C-alpha cells in the first residue's frame, strides 16, 4: 500500500483566512471610487452602443411599427433580457433560502441585475404597441385570455414586468440598507450624502436586523413568484399565441429554467470581472465559483430535460398540429439556430462543467458562461423570430398551414440587440460605482459564521448554521 501513500499536506490547503470586519467595510466601500481607465473606456463604449440601440429601436418603430412580422428579433431580445436580468437576482435568493453560507458575499452582485430589468421594459414598449389584438378579422386567437378583455395580454405582461422591476429593486434595497449606513459612515462626497439619505437611520439594532431578514425573505419570495408569472405571460402572449396551433404547456417553465441558467451564467461573468479587476480575491473565494458551477451544471441538464420532454411529445404525436409546431420551431428554417442553441446551451457547458477542476477555477467557468449566453440568444431567436414571422391574417387559424420564411435581421435589429445587451452591462457597471459590488454586511456575516479550524490534525472550516 505504500505506493498509494502520499503525505496529506500536499492535498489539503488551509481555507483562506478571514478578514477583519472593519477592513471589509473600508476596502469594499473604496471599490466604488477610483475607476480605472479601462473601466471608463468600457463604460463609454457600452454607453454609446446602448444609445445607438435605443435610437435604432425608435427608428425601427417609426419605420416598421405597422408590420408585426419584422419584430421577431426584438421579441427574442426581450426574452433574452428577461432571462438574464430577471434570472440573475434568483442566484441571490435560492441559496439564501437553502441557508448556504457561500452565497452570502455574492448576493449583491446578482441583485444589481435587478436594475437592468429596466432594459427589458424599455424594449417591451414597442412590442406592446405592435402585438396584434386578440381579435383579428373577426376571429379570436387562442390565448390564455379566454373571455378576458381584448387588451389583456398587453396590459398584464407590461404590469408583470413593471412589478418585477419594482420588486427586484426593493429586494436590492432591503438587503442594501446596512451598506448604505456603511457608506454614510465611511464614504465621502455624494456617496456619503446618498448613504445618509437611503440608510434611513439604520444603526443596526436587533429589531432592525430582524425586519431586514424578514424583508429579504418576503421580497425574495415575491420576486420569484413574479418572475415565474412574468415568464408565463411573456412566453404565451408574446410567443405561443402568435402561432396558430402552438400549444406547449411546458414552455413557460422551459423559459423560466433556461432563464435561471442564463441568470447564473450572467452572475458568474459579473463575479469573474469584479473579482479580477477590483481585486476582490480575498472576499470572493473559489468556493463560490465551485458552488455556482454545480448549480450551472444542474441547470444545464434541466435545459435538455425540459427541451426533450416537450420535443418527444410533439415527435410522437404526429398530428398536423404537432408536425407544424416541430417544423416551425425546430426542423424548419430555424434548424441551425436550434442546433447552435443545443450545442451552446447544453452540450458544450455540460462537457465543460462536468469536470470538478473547471468548477474549482474561474477562467473556464467564465468562458462556459459566455457560451451559455450566446446559446440562450440563439434559443430565443429560434423560438420568437418564427413566432413573430407568422402573418397577422393567419394568427387565429387552427394550426399553421404554411411555415413562414425566415426573417433575417436588418441593421436595426442588430443595433437593437447589441444596444440592449450593452445597456444591461452598462447599468450593472454603473451600479458598482454607487454601491459596493459585494455586500459589506454579508461578507462580514460570512466571516463571522465560517472560520478555518484545525480538526485534530486536518484542516477544515467550521460553518455555523443559525436559524
Amino acid at each position: 500500500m505504500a505506493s498509494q501513500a502520499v503525505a496529506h499536506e500536499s492535498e489539503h490547503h488551509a481555507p483562506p483566512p478571514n478578514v477583519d470586519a472593519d477592513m471589509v467595510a473600508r476596502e469594499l466601500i473604496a471599490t466604488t471610487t477610483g475607476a480605472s481607465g479601462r473601466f471608463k473606456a468600457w463604460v463609454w463604449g457600452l454607453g454609446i452602443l446602448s444609445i445607438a440601440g435605443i435610437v435604432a429601436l425608435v427608428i425601427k418603430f417609426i419605420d416598421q411599427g405597422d408590420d408585426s412580422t419584422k419584430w421577431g428579433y426584438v421579441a427574442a431580445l426581450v426574452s433574452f433580457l428577461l432571462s438574464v436580468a430577471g434570472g440573475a437576482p434568483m442566484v441571490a435568493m435560492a441559496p439564501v433560502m437553502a441557508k448556504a453560507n457561500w452565497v452570502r458575499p455574492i448576493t449583491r452582485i446578482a441583485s444589481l441585475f435587478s436594475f437592468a430589468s429596466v432594459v427589458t421594459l424599455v424594449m417591451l414598449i414597442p412590442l406592446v404597441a405592435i402585438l396584434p389584438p386578440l381579435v383579428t378579422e373577426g376571429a379570436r386567437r387562442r390565448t390564455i385570455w379566454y373571455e378576458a378583455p381584448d387588451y389583456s395580454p398587453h396590459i398584464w405582461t407590461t404590469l408583470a414586468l413593471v412589478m418585477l422591476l419594482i420588486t427586484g429593486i426593493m429586494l436590492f434595497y432591503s438587503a442594501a440598507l446596512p451598506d448604505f449606513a456603511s457608506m454614510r459612515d465611511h464614504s465621502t462626497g455624494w456617496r456619503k450624502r446618498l448613504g445618509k439619505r437611503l440608510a434611513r437611520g439604520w444603526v443596526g439594532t436587533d429589531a432592525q436586523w430582524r425586519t431586514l431578514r424578514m424583508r429579504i425573505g418576503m421580497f425574495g419570495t415575491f420576486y420569484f413568484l413574479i418572475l415565474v408569472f412574468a415568464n408565463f405571460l411573456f412566453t404565451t402572449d408574446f410567443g405561443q399565441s402568435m402561432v396558430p396551433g402552438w400549444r406547449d404547456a411546458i414552455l413557460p417553465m422551459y423559459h423560466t429554467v433556461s432563464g435561471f441558467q442564463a441568470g447564473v451564467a450572467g452572475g458568474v461573468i459579473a463575479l469573474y470581472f469584479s473579482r479580477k479587476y477590483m481585486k476582490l480575491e480575498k472576499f470572493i473565494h473559489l468556493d463560490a465559483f465551485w458552488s455556482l458551477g454545480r448549480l450551472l451544471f444542474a441547470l444545464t441538464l434541466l435545459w435538455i430535460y425540459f427541451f426533450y420532454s416537450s420535443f418527444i411529445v410533439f415527435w410522437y404525436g404526429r398530428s398536423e398540429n404537432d408536425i407544424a409546431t416541430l417544423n416551425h420551431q425546430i426542423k424548419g428554417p430555424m434548424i441551425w439556430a436550434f442546433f447552435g442553441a443545443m450545442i451552446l446551451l447544453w452540450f458544450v457547458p455540460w462537457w465543460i462543467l462536468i469536470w470538478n477542476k473547471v468548477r474549482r477555477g474561474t477562467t473556464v467557468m467564465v468562458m462556459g458562461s459566455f457560451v451559455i449566453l450566446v446559446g440562450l440568444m440563439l434559443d430565443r431567436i429560434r423560438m420568437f423570430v418564427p413566432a413573430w414571422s407568422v402573418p397577422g391574417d393567419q394568427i387565429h387559424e387552427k394550426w399553421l398551414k404554411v411555415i413562414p420564411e425566415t426573417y433575417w435581421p436588418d441593421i436595426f435589429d442588430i443595433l437593437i440587440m447589441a444596444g440592449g445587451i450593452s445597456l444591461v452591462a452598462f447599468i450593472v457597471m454603473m451600479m458598482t460605482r454607487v454601491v459596493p459590488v459585494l455586500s459589506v454586511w454579508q461578507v462580514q456575516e460570512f466571516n463571522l459564521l465560517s472560520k478555518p479550524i484545525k480538526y485534530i490534525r486536518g484542516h477544515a472550516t467550521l460553518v455555523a448554521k443559525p436559524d
Partner: protein
Amino acid sequence: MQQRRELDQVYTNRKLLNGQLDTPKWWLPTVSILGVVVLIGVVVIATMVNKGLGVTGLARPVYWGLFITTFVFWVGISHAGIMISAILRLTQAEWRRPVTRAAELLTVFSLLTALVFPLIHAGRPWRIAYWIMPYDISRGIYPNIRSPLIMDPVAISTYLTGSTLFLYIALLPDLGNLRDRTTGWKNAMYTVLSLGWRGNPRQWKMQTVGGILLSALMLPIFVSVHSIVSWDFAVASAVEGWHSTIFAPYFVIGAVHSGVSAVVTMMALMRWLWKWDDFIRPEHFDALARLLIVVATGWLAFTFLELTFALYGQDAPEIALREMQMFQWPWNALFIIFFLTAYAIPVPMWLFKRVRTNIALMFWTSILVNIGMWLERFLIIVPGLARRTPFVYTWEAYRPSPVEWTIFIWSFAWVTFLMLLFSKFFPLVPLFEQKESQVFTEDVMIGRAKIPAIVREAD
C-alpha cells in the same frame, strides 16, 4: 434549527439496532397479519390470472384503471428515496442523515410493487417476456423500442437495480457494525454481507466519494423514470387530456410530492414503533415539511399550467373532458377530495412551525397528501378514457371490482411487510451517518449565543 445532542456510540448502537438484536413485541403479530393479507392478495392475483381480466371492472373503453393508477402511484412513491438521499447528499443537508436509508428502502420496495401491476394487468404475464426482452433470436422478432411501454420497463429496471445497489453500498458500514454485535449464524451472515468491512480511511473515503458519485448518477435516472412513465400517456395523441408536453416534469414533481410525504409517514412510524425519539426528531419533520411546502407549491404551479394549456387550444372535446373531470358526478367529488388532500389542507397547515414539529399532525397530513396524489393519477388516467366520444358504441362506466380493490390493498400490505422483514435484519436508520453527524457537528459561541456548526472538510 439543528438541536445538537451528545449521543454515546454504544447507546446509538443499542437503540438503532434494537430491531435486529432484539425483536420488538409488536413485530411478530404485525408481520403475521400482514403476511395473511399478502397471501390473500397473492391468491386473488392467481385467481385473476387463471380466470382472466374479466374479473376486473376493466372494459371498453376504460382499459387502464385501478391497476395502472396504482402502478403510477407506487412509482411516484419510489421517487422519495433518491430525492431525499441524493439531492440532500449533494447539497450536504445535515438533516438528511436519519432519513436516507428509509427513503432508499421505500424506493426499492415500492418499485418492486409497482412492477407487479403492469405485469398482472397484461392478463397473461408470461407473455410480457416476448415484448420486453430481445431474446427471440430464432424467429427474429424483437421488441418495438419505439413504444414507451418498452422504455418503461427498461427505465424502471435501471432504477430498481441502481437503487438496490446504492442501498447496499450505503449499508456496508452498518453491516460491519452488526457483525461486531452478533454471534452464531447471524454473525456469519453479516460477516459475508459486510465483505470484510473494517473502517479504514480508504473505505470511508469510498463511502463518501462513492456516495456522492452514485447520487449524481442516480438523480438523472430518477428524473427519467417518472418522465418515461408519463410518456406512456403523453405520447398518445388520441386520448384527450394526455397529450401534453408538461407531463414529464409534472409527473416527476408530483412523484416527489407524494414520495417525500410517504417518507414523513414512515419516519413518524419509525419513531413511534422503535422509540427512536433521540434520532428522528421534530426538527427533521420541520425540515421535511419546509421542503414539502416548496415541492407542493411547485407541483401546484405545474397543475395550473397543465390545466391552462389543456383549455388553451379551446377544442370542444378537451373542454368537455375537463368539465367532466371537475364538475360531473362522481368525478367532481373525487376532484374536490384530491385538491383538498393534496394541497389545500396540508400545505397551509405546514406553514405553521407548530404543525411542522408536531409528529402526529405531520403523520396525518402526509397520509392526506398520498390520498390526494393517488386520486390525481386516477383523475388523469381514467376520465380521459371514460368520456363518451363519437363512434364508440360500447361503453360502460368504470367501476373497480372487488378483485382490483383487494390487489390494491395487497400492495400496501406487501410494501409494509417487506419493510418490516427488512427491519428484522438491517437497520432502518444508518448508524454510521448518525455517528458521523456527531463527529461533524460542533457548537460555536458567537458572542453569548451558542450556534450549531458543521465541520466542512477543506479541499
